């Protein structure tokens, strides 16, 4: 059985750092850290050992924070992001800003890949490792993500 309390002590900083980046709020990130590990402690069988602990923590943090973003009542910011998208370029930095603002509105699979690509700056190989899919699938998901963002701006 995985020692979750040891993982919290030794690698909890990873969860906190990524939650901070995704949510953009330190207090909310600290609360998320506690809730993520509280959930893991309640259901330790979630870790199946198929990936490294770090990869697994990346995945659970992303999913938790995306759910948190979806429940945020900040729809006004999405409207601003839509307006920003109408003059978007293909520059990664613009997509980073808009991806963060639109994460709550994207389907779960596309939101996750958007986080890994534009917030974590992972390569396609690294994203494939976290998502347990092929590199080609990652490319396909990113293309769908870009399409969704552009469509929402239209």
């Amino acid at each position, binding site marked *: 059985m995985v020692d979750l*309390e040891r993982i*919290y*002590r*030794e*690698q*909890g*900083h*990873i969860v*906190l*750092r*990524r939650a*901070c*980046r995704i949510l953009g709020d*330190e207090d909310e990130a*600290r*609360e998320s*850290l*506690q*809730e*993520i*590990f*509280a*959930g893991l*402690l*309640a259901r330790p069988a979630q870790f199946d050992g198929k990936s*490294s*602990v*770090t*990869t697994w923590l*990346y995945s659970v943090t992303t999913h938790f924070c995306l759910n948190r973003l979806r429940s945020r009542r900040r729809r006004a910011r999405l409207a601003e992001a839509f307006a920003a998208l109408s003059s978007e370029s293909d520059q*990664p*930095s613009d997509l980073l800003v808009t991806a963060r603002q639109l994460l709550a509105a994207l389907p779960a699979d596309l939101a996750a890949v958007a986080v890994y690509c534009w917030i*974590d*700056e*992972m*390569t396609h190989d*690294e994203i494939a*490792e*976290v998502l347990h899919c092929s590199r080609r699938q990652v490319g396909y998901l990113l293309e769908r993500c870009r399409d969704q963002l552009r469509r929402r701006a239209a």
Partner: protein
Amino acid sequence: MMPARTRAAGCLGDLRFDQLLAGELDGDTRVAAEHHIEGCAACRQLLAALQRDRDSFRARRPPLVRRGRIARRRLTVAAVGCLAAAALLLVLRGGFDRPGARVKGGPGLGLWVKRNDQVWRGAAREVVYPGDALRFTFTSRESGYLAVVSRDGGGQVNIYHPDGTIAAPIAAGNEVPLPGSIVLDQVVGPETLYVLFCSRPISLEPVQRALAERGHLADWDDCKVGAVMLDKREDK
């Protein structure tokens, strides 16, 4: 917060750095990563920043609250009645106090315990179990800066209040509730709570280190210090 960055082509990403620091990279991948870091100043800087972030987290040792949602819910202290006249759990004099001692007008810590749907006022040597939620109140005629630090049965030192590493301001008042609550983890044995009521916002990291090294805390500059033990037992 770690600063954002734009990853240059060929450089390592956070995932690889985190795996490297956790010892999870296999032989060839690890060698390639270390070789790249040796020749890349940007990656060396980022690795150092991630190591500092990791070390800072480990040094702070924020307690792992088993039920995050409970930690954010307020125990309904008011619902069990305002017991202003009840004995405080611990009264501070400037050194260790006898648990349960009362000094008229002295600052003091109150304890509430929640188990399932029951809430009651705790006393010195209160028997508690993993999963119990603790909520503190503080009584003082003057304002100051407050911290509650715990040393559990395994020797681990945690800051119960505040949510950070600097003693937090506390207003004068009677049974002023401290924010949030602490849900006890699985470590059993005598757990000692140290209360520091200070004239200035002291850093708590030296307090943690001193408590971890010495096993007890009798005094601290610019603070009144008190200690009280809880009897944390295994849930059967």
